């Protein structure tokens, strides 16, 4: 259901940009389509390796280990563990958020879980390798991940400061 909405917005945006390109001239449109298709052809093998391979990586890092790391820890040590766990979590959004939800129910501290979710969103290693590297210059990917390091901690600090609503 939500997947259908995403597809509609996505292809709608593509169509809108195609119309703009077409208005600029046929050449702009054909060049863009050719460039995009070439990018696609070049990226498919890398995505194939990532997506088809990711199931194996997820299978050897069981979710229980990561939930264990999150635990009902508190304090900054808990935040640090949460950040490492977030970076190490394999798989897609279902896995990441489910682990967060489990930890929340199991009594994990809210700042720790914020840190976990933010760290996972910012630099889960599997997403860096499987999604970002194929699409973007590797130099940018590593740089961005390094620059992102302090922010799960900052998020946890804000969470501790303002508390839960």
């Amino acid at each position: 259901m939500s997947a259908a909405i995403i597809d509609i917005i996505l292809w709608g945006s593509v169509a809108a940009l195609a119309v703009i390109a077409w208005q600029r001239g046929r050449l702009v449109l054909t060049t863009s389509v050719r460039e995009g298709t070439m990018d696609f052809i070049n990226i498919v093998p890398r995505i194939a390796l990532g997506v088809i391979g990711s199931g194996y990586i997820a299978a050897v890092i069981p979710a229980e280990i990561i939930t264990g790391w999150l635990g009902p820890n508190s304090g900054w040590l808990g935040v640090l563990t949460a950040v490492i766990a977030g970076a190490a979590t394999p798989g897609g959004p279902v896995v990441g958020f489910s682990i967060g939800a489990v930890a929340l129910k199991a009594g994990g501290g809210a700042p720790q879980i914020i840190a976990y979710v933010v760290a996972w969103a910012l630099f889960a290693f599997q997403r860096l390798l499987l999604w970002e590297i194929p699409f973007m210059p590797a130099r940018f990917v590593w740089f961005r991940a390094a620059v992102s390091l302090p922010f799960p901690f900052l998020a946890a600090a804000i969470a501790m400061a303002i508390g839960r609503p």
Partner: protein
Amino acid sequence: MSELPLKDPAPADDAAEAEPRPGRIRKPIGWSMIVIAVLVAVSAALVYRRDGIDGVLEILTHDLALFGGILPRVLAGCLLGAFIAEILPHEKVSRSLGPKSGLKGLLIGTAFGAILPGGPFTAYPVASALLTVGADFGATIAMVVSWTLIGYGRAVAWELPIMGTDFTLWRIVISLPLPVLAGALGRFVYVRMYSRIAP
């Protein structure tokens, strides 16, 4: 020290306008891909030892289905990136998202990341396109971080149903300042790391 990689998209003043688009990076195999391949191979071998050939095949069929489902979206993302690279005027992009764009550039990057539709298959090609047309690392970092932390796509599709509304809203509010801060930090570090190359 003297021959650091010089392919950086850094500010080429206004001369950048004259030269043709420097083409996206298309190295079929880099060391990162080799690392991934090794990681996948080792993991697959571990699964094989644990679950036998059935376990390996089960994951393979599941992931093949996933791959098939994602492909059209990857195509859409690539087209989106190509259109953006082709349509957006380069000097305008480097003015509003380039190294000298200041706080405004970071805010534009953040807003753009927050409203961008689709998943990783859109965000990353678009980010890559922005880099080629003159956005700097800072603004692009703001965009990627904003997409991942406050973009509505993932929040609505996955986080709300799994984590609940309270937690999701709370987390997004806390995350609001992060993209701009990450972009600013990125810019700060980038300038100091590469200032000797692009004076």
